[in-house]
């Protein structure tokens, strides 16, 4: 277990004082390693909040470069970063936000063949991606290595979030067996803000051991109608990704 120093005790005082969190919970956060796949609209709030909370080591992976069209929602980046690799830009922002944590940028494209080297053995995976091909790579890694995955996705005003930890929960392929149509999708900047923030909340609860995660529940948010709707989700008995795991 990581020891907290005096600066930690001051910096994280307001969350240490949350019932059940305490110095022990903060020490768990400090010892934690997380992998954030995607440094875009979802990855921004996820990375900001996990860094601010004092997560000891954050790997953030994205092979894209910052573009002007990203800036309505990808708050890790700004005008002067246009053209920079998003992972590097994210690391600069996060280190400035919290110099007391380790940020590891990775600008490779995540694939099945390099996943083991890029991801390693974090405590939790965060799906902040914008395409299902890579989401399925992350899902397969989560299943193979038994690492929980917090899935988040958005389209326009709508987004969804769930906590995946098969065989206790379904995997992503149980819930979304075939990839929805890809391509450039519309995004109200606040939508990934809401969903990414919920993903960060799910990760912090898991890392501290506090509360209940969205296991077996996909939470849908519709910003246009300002509704949250939980949908119960179950494992697919013949799921090609996790069907081999015990029921």
């Amino acid at each position, binding site marked *: 277990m990581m020891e907290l120093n005096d600066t930690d005790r001051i910096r994280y005082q307001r969350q240490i004082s949350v019932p059940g969190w305490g110095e022990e919970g903060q020490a768990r956060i400090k010892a934690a390693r997380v992998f954030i796949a995607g440094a875009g609209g979802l990855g921004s709030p996820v990375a900001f909040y996990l860094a601010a909370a004092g997560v000891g080591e954050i790997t953030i992976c994205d092979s894209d470069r910052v573009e002007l069209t990203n800036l309505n929602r990808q708050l890790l980046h700004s005008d002067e970063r246009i053209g920079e690799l998003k992972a590097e830009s994210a690391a600069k922002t996060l280190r400035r936000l919290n110099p007391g944590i380790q940020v590891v940028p990775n600008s490779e494209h995540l694939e099945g063949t390099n996943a083991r080297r890029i991801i390693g053995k974090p405590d939790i995976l965060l799906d902040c991606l914008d395409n299902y091909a890579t989401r399925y790579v992350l899902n397969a890694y989560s299943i193979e290595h038994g690492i929980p995955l917090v899935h988040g996705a*958005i389209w326009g005003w709508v987004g969804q979030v769930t906590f995946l930890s098969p065989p206790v929960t379904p995997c992503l392929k149980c819930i979304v067996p075939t990839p929805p149509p890809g391509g450039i999708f519309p995004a109200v900047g606040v939508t990934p803000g809401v969903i990414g923030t919920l993903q960060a909340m799910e990760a912090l609860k898991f890392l501290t051991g506090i509360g209940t995660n969205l296991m077996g529940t996909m939470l849908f948010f*519709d910003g246009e109608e300002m509704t949250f709707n939980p949908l119960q989700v*179950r494992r697919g008995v013949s799921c090609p990704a996790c069907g081999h795991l015990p029921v």
Partner: protein
Amino acid sequence: MVQLRPASEMDAPGIRTLVHQAQLNPLDLDWPRFIVAVSPDGELVGCGQVKTHRDGSRELASIVVAPAFRNQGIARAIIEHLSGSHPGMLYLTCRTSLGSFYEKLGYQIIQKEEMPLYFRRISHLFRLMNKAHLVGDGLLVMRREQESNICGLAE
């Protein structure tokens, strides 16, 4: 010739597989409510059930025929069997593309105001998934209104 019979406990895994492969609702698949279609060599090739929701509404659900046995009237036979054995009002949900098939079997599309709570909620969730681009087709809620032929009582 494919035959229909009430499901037995041994059919439960096959029912789950059929429903999952068809990407239908994987919840509430209790085998005692099901009828199954079985090929001459005993293979489970289709299924269907009527389930009752907490709001009291009843749903014709989990209607599946294995791909190799489609276009032989098996789905129609399952639906007619279940409809006949469950007189009174029955609801169903289906993809928009299947609406005309169910219309031929006496079901009519209903609007949100006419839906029981369960179907209003399902319809809303499906619309959300559609809005989130997780599903490509729309969802219809349909209803069959039929006088009971048991003791002449309408439900």
